[in-house]
């Protein structure tokens, strides 16, 4: 492919043309490194304005990659965010000197979106204080670089909790509001981005603006689920709720499609407070269902449990015993299942997180299981988000792709309740066009298990999953980010060009997170 050179101080054309990936097995995620033109003048300007900027590999090296571990790049310098005024000074100077700014929250992207390929990296984790908890109105005002887990720590002291957040402990509020944020209660409470009541945003030209659905609504709509294109989120007001421990139930299926049908049935009927699917193997699918209160649990037991087609643990063990007794040549599979059960199940049952039959601090229990059993130095987590009616097809096709590329993998499926009044927020986002009521997300996660795979292998796998999305007119719930090369293919030129025009207007020098979408 002939990639035209980038003019110093300007943003070149997208190196990945809309159709560039067709028939190409591997697409390098790294964009070209910014050439550094005018860097020293920029550094002098920001330092003169009192902004601390660190250079050198000791300061920059820790940002060399993101959780994905496949895209590598380094900034020229790092600024740790301290307040909106400082961020504003930085962005004004960056506009004037045409220096790219990459914002990083928890750095949990997997396609290099929070990796700086030159320019400044703005580390938001320095702005991580809770500013005010309003227990009466159930809202919290917080600096946006805070990790959801740290927010939960503070809320818990007041016996409160956030509504929904990614299950990984170290994603930040700001990073998540721009991406989505799916939890096992999203089928009921929506994605994290829908919990934002208002935001303080520093625009790419350095204005500090408060926005919400009522105030500067257009900016709010673009910043929420906007992948950091239209401003740096410096503070957020979020809805919160009283803390509750959970009563958990697990049902086991040997068919993915049946489990998904049951999941969607529960969601449609508001039968549970938490619901999700986690597969161990194609023939061992776990539907988890949980409740915030005894009343909700009792109502589920009375009205819905009997309609589930899954088994309890003992019933499923018997079922599997029968299955493998008739297929002794598949003993390896049975052993893997057993070994996985022994490794993973105790993690969800640790006594220090259970009291009186209820699980406390579920986000910790789930997240540490995620890091322990699915974490690795390379995290390849492509995903698909579809309307409810095409979800089974998307998942089954994605599952077939996983089977082709890896011996073992896990699928994680959840519903995402949509808020009709938030339709403008959803444009060109993880919410698939055409979804009504609920969108459904499935994440496809290979088990790396100490194996070494080439980047080509990972990339080909991701392409194969993303291609399903293009084919089905789906979106991506951005668990793992979406490869830039797919944006136009998924959303179409007209929509992307409209957003590009808005971006150019808001960010004339195209400095902010410029390699992520456009």
């Amino acid at each position, binding site marked *: 492919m002939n990639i035209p050179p980038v003019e110093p101080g300007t943003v070149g054309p997208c190196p990945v043309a809309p159709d560039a990936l067709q028939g190409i097995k591997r697409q390098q995620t790294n964009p070209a490194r910014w050439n550094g033109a005018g860097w020293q003048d920029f550094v002098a300007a920001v330092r003169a304005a009192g902004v601390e900027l660190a250079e050198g*590999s*000791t300061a920059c*090296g*820790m940002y060399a990659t993101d*959780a994905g571990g496949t895209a590598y790049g380094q900034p020229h310098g790092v600024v740790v965010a301290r307040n909106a005024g400082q961020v504003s000074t930085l962005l004004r100077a960056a506009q004037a000197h045409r220096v790219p700014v990459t914002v990083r929250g928890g750095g949990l992207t997997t396609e290099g979106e929070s990796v700086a390929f030159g320019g400044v990296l703005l580390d938001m984790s320095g702005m*991580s204080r809770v500013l005010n908890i309003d227990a009466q109105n159930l809202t919290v005002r917080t600096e946006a670089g805070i990790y959801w887990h740290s927010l939960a720590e*503070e809320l818990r002291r007041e016996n409160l909790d956030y509504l929904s957040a990614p299950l990984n402990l*170290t994603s930040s509020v700001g990073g998540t509001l721009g991406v989505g944020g799916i939890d096992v209660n999203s089928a009921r409470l929506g994605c994290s981005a829908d919990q934002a009541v208002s935001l303080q945003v520093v625009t790419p030209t350095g204005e500090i603006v408060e926005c919400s659905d009522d105030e500067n609504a257009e900016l709010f709509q673009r910043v929420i689920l906007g992948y950091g294109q239209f401003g740096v989120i410096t503070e957020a007001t979020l809805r919160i709720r009283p803390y509750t421990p959970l009563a958990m139930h697990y049902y086991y299926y040997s068919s993915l499609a049946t489990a998904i049908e049951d999941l969607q049935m529960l969601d449609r009927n508001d039968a549970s407070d938490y619901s999700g699917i986690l597969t161990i193997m194609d023939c061992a699918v776990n539907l988890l269902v949980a409740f915030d209160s005894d009343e909700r649990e009792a109502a589920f037991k009375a009205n819905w449990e009997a309609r589930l087609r899954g088994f309890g643990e003992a019933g499923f063990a018997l079922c599997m015993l029968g299955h493998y007794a008739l297929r002794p040549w598949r003993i390896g599979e049975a052993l893997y299942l057993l070994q996985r059960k022994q490794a993973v199940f105790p993690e969800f049952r640790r006594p220090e997180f259970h009291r009186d039959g209820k699980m406390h601090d579920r986000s910790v229990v789930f997240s540490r299981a995620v*890091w322990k059993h699915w*974490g690795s130095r390379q995290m390849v987590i492509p995903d698909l988000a579809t309307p409810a009616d095409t979800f089974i097809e998307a998942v089954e096709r994605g599952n077939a792709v996983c089977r082709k590329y890896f011996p073992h993998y896990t699928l994680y499926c959840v519903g995402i309740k949509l808020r009709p009044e938030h339709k403008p927020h959803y444009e060109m986002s993880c919410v698939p066009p055409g979804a009504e009521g609920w969108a459904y997300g499935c994440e496809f996660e290979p088990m790396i298990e100490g194996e070494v795979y080439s980047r080509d292998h990972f990339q080909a796998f991701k392409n194969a999953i993303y291609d399903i999305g293009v084919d089905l007119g789906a979106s991506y719930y951005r668990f793992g980010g979406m490869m830039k090369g797919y944006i136009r293919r998924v959303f179409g030129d007209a929509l992307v060009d409209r957003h590009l025009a808005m971006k150019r207007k808001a960010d004339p020098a195209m400095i902010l997170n410029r390699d992520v979408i456009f």
Partner: protein
Amino acid sequence: MYSSAHSREFPACSGCSLCRLVCPMWRSHRDPRFSPEGLAKALQCGATAAELAAPLDACSFCGACDPVCPERIDLTGMIMELRRQLPQSATTVNVPVPPGPAPAGALLLPGAALRADPALLTRVKGLLGIAVAADDGADIAQALETGGAIDTPRQRAFLRGLDGRTLVVGDALLLRQLRRWLPAARLQGLGEALGNVGVIRRRLASADFYVIEARAYHADYERLVGHYDGLRADTGCAMNLDLQRIAIPAVDEAEARWMLQGRRPARIVVENPAEREILRRVADVPVLHLAELAEA
């Protein structure tokens, strides 16, 4: 929390940031360079100990980062080693060895903080009913803390006759080190040992706020998380544990305030005498050492 087997080193750091969530140094600086992750990543980029002197100095050795690291990096060990490499740390510990062998049976190695309060030491000794070692390795503990070099003959003299015995160790950094040096010894921290004394356990009440000594707890996390969960279930008292069941240390007043934020205890009970003083400065309720409970 993921495993007690710490064997890996800084190259294994994946940058997951889980260690930041529990690190008091990170909480006070909110700068990634002041975190175990920042140190590990800087080392991956070839930084020297001298370049990392500020965060190395700011680390309190609370050990909270060790059990949460999914890559099982011995982060406290890494930081201790780096402190040893700092130029100003090149002091050798070599104090006169006390004469005669240590008495037979279980031994209490009180450590500097407990020795500084003779009345409390007498109480602890009475409650545990064990002899106090004349040589409690306080100088070695200090060297571990400051990064000073430890003279090999001095180390040998201190350890002579200790392996295979039951030892209650007041200084938690020394306790951590003794686990490596004395594989056959039965080692306990002061808090764990006193917490198992019936009269103390009975006097802990549900309105108490119990402050676990972070260093001792994190150094033997997998086992002690069960011990303290049992203590909490028996007594009903709240503890200085965060949502991950990691202990928040009262290393300074800011951390002590964070520890107590949103809690309204009637009384605070500490394992570590040094934390008693810091907590007294920020709390408006009585702060007692565990050993003082017996007479409270």
